Structures are given as C-alpha cells and as structure tokens.
C-alpha cells in the first residue's frame, strides 16, 4: 500500500552516498597535515614569545606583572585538572594556593628547611590535607560541590587570620627570600622562568592524562557520572586522584608565589576572588583544551594588571572582570579556543551533511516499508 514515506524514495538510478570518496580522504589528510604544521608553528612561536618576555619587558614593574600573569597561568591550568577533566567546578581552589604558600613559608621559618625543599614539602602537605577534604567534598555534585569548595577556603581564611602565633594573622607572614643576593629585576626574571617551568610540567602532565585511560574515564565522569559508573569506571577514586593532582599543582603555584612575593596575608592567599579568577580564566580559554587556561590567564591576567597600572587603586579591574565573565558565558560558553576553531571551520572545508539518514538508509527504509505493506 503506498504511503507518505514513498515520496522520500530516492531516484532509482544508483546515486553516490555520503561515503567519502578517495579525493575527500586525500583532502582530509592534507588538512590534517596543515593543521599539525600550524599547531607546531604556533607552539614554537608561543614558547619563544613567552621565554623572551623578560628581555622585552621595558621595566621591572612590567616584569613583575609578567610574573603575576605566569602565576595565574599556573593556577588556572592546575584548576583545570579538576574542572576541565571532571566538570567539577571548584570556586575554592584558592584554599590550596594559600595552603601551599603558608606551608612553604612556615617550613622555612619554623623548621629552617631550604627554600625549594620546603616548597616540595608544602606540596606534600597540601596533598595530605586534601585527601580527607576531597573524600568529603566529592560525595556531593554540582552546586553543592561549589558550596563545599567555597566553605573550605573560608574556613582556612578564618583559621589563618585567627591563629596569630602560628601564621602571623593579619600582620602577615614574611617568607625569607631564596636568593638574597639577587637584585629586584633579576629576582623577577628568575621567578618568571620558575613559574614557566612549573607551567610546562603541568601542561605535560595534562597532555599525558588527556591521552590516557585515566583521562578517558575522567571525561566520561564529566559527561555523565552515572553512566561512567555503569560502564565500570571507578568514578570515586578517579575524581579523588584528579582532585589531588589539581590541589598539588595549585599548592605548588602558591608556594612558588610565597617564595617570590615574600609576604603572605590571609586575605589575599585564601581569597574567593583568586578562586574565581582561576575559573574565569579556564572558562574563557576553554576547559577542554590543553592551552585553554593559559590563554585565559594571558587575557584576564594581562587585563587585570593593565587596569591596576592605569587606574591604580580603583576597583575598575573588578568591574572589567565581571563584564568579561558575563561576555564569556553569553557568547563563548565553551571558551575562546572552541569558538575560534568553529569560526575557522566555517570558512574551511565543510563536513559532510548532518542529515540523519543517508540515501542508502532511506532506500532501505522504504524497501522495508514496501515489504511490510506487501505482507499485510
């Protein structure tokens, strides 16, 4: 019996289906090679630009701003080990930054450890503290996790302010300089390279995880935790490991900051604002991409330093940050890197049609239809 779907029957002459012909395959391969070359050139250019920054900086102030931006890049990339892989948004990552900073300072002051040994020791302290915190915090998801992460940083802020004998309270904690003989500009230069080296290690670890079985499991958690669990991904353990790696690197960034800046104040170390910057930078660049948080840190960190330089003590940089956050969420919710990739794709070669059925399927369906009609 003829029915409406017959109108969809393709012409009887054999037509080419959407399967890629040999030419398309060649084209795709060429495009891939080009993409790889572009990536390599961009990587080398980016690395050269970053490494030559201290020589290009016109004055020590700009150089110190560069160190701040590098430390932002470290924290945002460290945050992304959790936020990017698992989709758990922590607004309280400043807790680990502050813990790393204070642990470094206190290990030097109270135990007289050499500065960089204290720095590594601080990393271990952060991991030890994060294990129970992570086990507790990761029992909840979504908005609840965000709240728990904020609560953690607020608790640490109050403790570090109140425990004056140990942390120095609001008077601050002075961290002895690791290189007492260096002049200020030289000091900035050394720390710029130290931050960049730390960042390079993080990017490498991120890259390795991204290609690993562990990474595949984490990404499944990001997409849907229940499904991931049903497929046999040990979601709880994986989340905890990602959280620890993220906390460790954030703590190491904090410790490095302590060694560089030399003066710690609870209000700036355990700061909600710092945690929010990490999220903003990672979101801006693109949390699913290796360089996303770095790109975001260059933009947000650069803008913050610029506003502070130009407008001094006003709070204009905060307003600008808020506007930026709004723009990101409205126009590029997945970040700049995916948005730019889409834009390039739009001008580049188009993918094959996204029609749900190929001509061959349609033909098969209509034939089934005819057979069924004949049976009746």
């Amino acid at each position, binding site marked *: 019996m003829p029915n409406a779907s017959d109108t969809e029957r393709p012409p009887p002459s054999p037509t080419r289906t959407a399967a890629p012909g040999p030419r398309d395959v060649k084209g795709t391969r060429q495009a891939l090679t080009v993409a790889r070359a572009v990536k390599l050139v961009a990587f080398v250019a980016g690395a050269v630009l970053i490494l030559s920054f201290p020589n290009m900086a016109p004055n020590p102030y700009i150089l110190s701003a560069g160190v701040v931006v590098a430390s932002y890049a470290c924290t945002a990339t460290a945050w992304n080990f959790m936020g990017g892989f698992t989709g758990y948004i922590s607004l309280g990552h400043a807790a680990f930054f502050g813990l790393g900073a204070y642990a470094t300072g206190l290990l030097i002051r109270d135990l007289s450890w050499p500065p960089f040994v204290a720095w590594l020791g601080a990393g271990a302290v952060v991991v030890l503290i994060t294990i129970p915190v992570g086990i507790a915090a990761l029992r909840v998801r979504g908005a609840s996790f965000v709240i728990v992460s904020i609560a953690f940083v607020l608790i640490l802020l109050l403790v570090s302010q109140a425990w004056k004998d140990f942390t120095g309270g609001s008077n601050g904690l002075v961290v002895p300089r690791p290189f007492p003989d260096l002049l200020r500009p030289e000091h900035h230069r050394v720390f710029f390279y130290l931050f960049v080296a730390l960042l390079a290690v993080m990017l490498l670890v991120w890259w390795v995880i991204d290609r690993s*079985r562990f990474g595949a*499991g984490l990404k*499944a958690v990001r997409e*849907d935790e229940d499904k991931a669990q049903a*497929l046999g*991904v*040990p979601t709880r353990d994986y989340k905890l490991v990602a959280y620890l790696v993220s906390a460790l690197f954030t703590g190491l960034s904090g410790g490095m900051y302590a060694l560089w800046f030399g003066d710690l104040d609870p209000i700036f170390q355990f700061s909600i604002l710092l945690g929010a910057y990490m999220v903003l930078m990672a979101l801006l660049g693109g949390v699913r991409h290796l360089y996303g948080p770095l790109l975001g840190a260059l933009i947000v960190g650069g803008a913050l330093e610029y506003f502070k330089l130009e407008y001094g003590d006003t709070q204009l940089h905060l307003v600008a940050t808020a506007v930026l956050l709004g723009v990101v969420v409205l126009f590029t919710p997945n970040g700049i890197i995916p948005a730019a990739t889409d834009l390039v794709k739009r001008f580049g070669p188009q993918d094959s049609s996204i029609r749900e059925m190929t001509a061959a399927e349609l033909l098969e369906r209509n034939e089934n239809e005819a057979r*069924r009609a004949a*049976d009746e």
Partner: protein
Amino acid sequence: MASEPTPAGGPAPLLVLDDVQAGYGRAAMVLRGLTIEVPPGTVVCLVGPNGAGKSTVLKVASGLLKPRSGRVLVDGDDVTGRGPQAMLASGLAHVLQGHSVFREMTVEENVLLGAYTLRDKARVAERVAFVRDLFPIVGERWKQLAGLLSGGQQKQVEFARSLMVDPKVVLLDEPSMGLDPKTTATVFEQVTRMRDAGTAVLLVEQNARRALETADLGCVLDLGRVHISGPAPELLADPQLSELYLGGRPAEPSLPVEG
C-alpha cells in the same frame, strides 16, 4: 516471532535474583522478595505499572543498588552486593534509561568506553569488529559526535557499547523511551539480534505489549513482587492480564515483528 519459551528444567539460568528485597535510603522497600531467572539465549521482559520496581531490579542486578536481602547469582556464582565494576566483570552490562550516549563524544569514544574494563587491546579490537558488524550504523557514524545521531541510532550505539565486554546478560532499561513507533520496532529488532548473537537480555519496558511480542519470557511485576511470569505469548493471550497491565485488549491483531 521469537523462539519457543525455555521448557521447565531447561539450561541453568544465567542470571538469578533470588528473593531480593531492596529500596532507596530509608524509604519503604521497592522490591519485596522478588525472584527472577534469565535463561541463556532468551529475552526476558519485565512489565508492570509505574513504581512496580522494574528499573530497581536492573539496578540491583548491575550493582548500582545493593539489595537488603536475597541473592544475585550469575552463572551460579553468588555476586550479591558487588559494585558496578565487579558486576560488569561477572558479565552483566546495564544500558540505562533514556538517552545514555555521551553526547559530546564520538561514536568511537562511546563504544570504546564500553570496553573500559578490558585491558587486552587485541580483545577490544575483536569486540569492536563484532559490534560494528552487528550494528552497521555504528561503523558508519564511527567518527561523528554521538549527540548528533538520531534517537534510534543513539540506542544502537548504546547497545554496541554494552556488548563490548561480551556480557552474559544485557540489562536494558526502557530502550524505546522517546522513540517513534517505527524506530521502536527497529530497536526491538536489534534486541532480538543481540539475543541471536548469544547474549541474554533482561528488558524493562513501559511499552508492554510491544515488548512482550519481542520477548521469550515475561514477568509481570506489581508492588515489588513477581505477580505472574511465563512464556511471553501466554501472558499476551491472558485476557485478565491484558485488562490489568497492558491497557485493555488489543482492538486488532498487533503488527508482526520482524527479525
């Protein structure tokens, strides 16, 4: 139509839920002493009203929910109380309700995640070839984002993913949810193909009449117990059951099922 029902005293069942009681939190029991068997090479269908505990049965079987009492046996081994990974390892794969592909991942990534518990690469490649052969659409859309596929195609990706571990029993929770009647027919065809390829199926369906037409055995659940069970055609033919659980008698003979 489906094969004959397994005669009593046939091959030992692959999956047994024996006198299982289970519930969520402190709320009342959902399953109150439920016993179900899935013999090899069969599609067993659970039907029953909302809240009867159909999905809960699957959750207990796949380890997402621990039973409070009773036993779960796979191929004679007691696996009661094990977690999802262990259940998967012992041969039970769960396809969750609704659209459960990872939408932002490619079909390939989805299917490979199904083999997450397999470490042998050659074995994974073997299974990939197997599921691509069983579900051609999966091979055709291999590099596409799963979220861009139609509902019926996504279901096939989910089936393929669940078969990657070569499970003894696949637990299907409402595979026809949100699909049009024609696509539903295709999905049930795929269910019989899975059975014919050697995997027993425990199926939960709202679309009760359609599912019983596909299944070999049926169980009617009510208030957390098996109200009645038997060969699916007999359940379909029972006028009282039709009235109570299948939404009245069919007004006309139902469509033949292909496959």
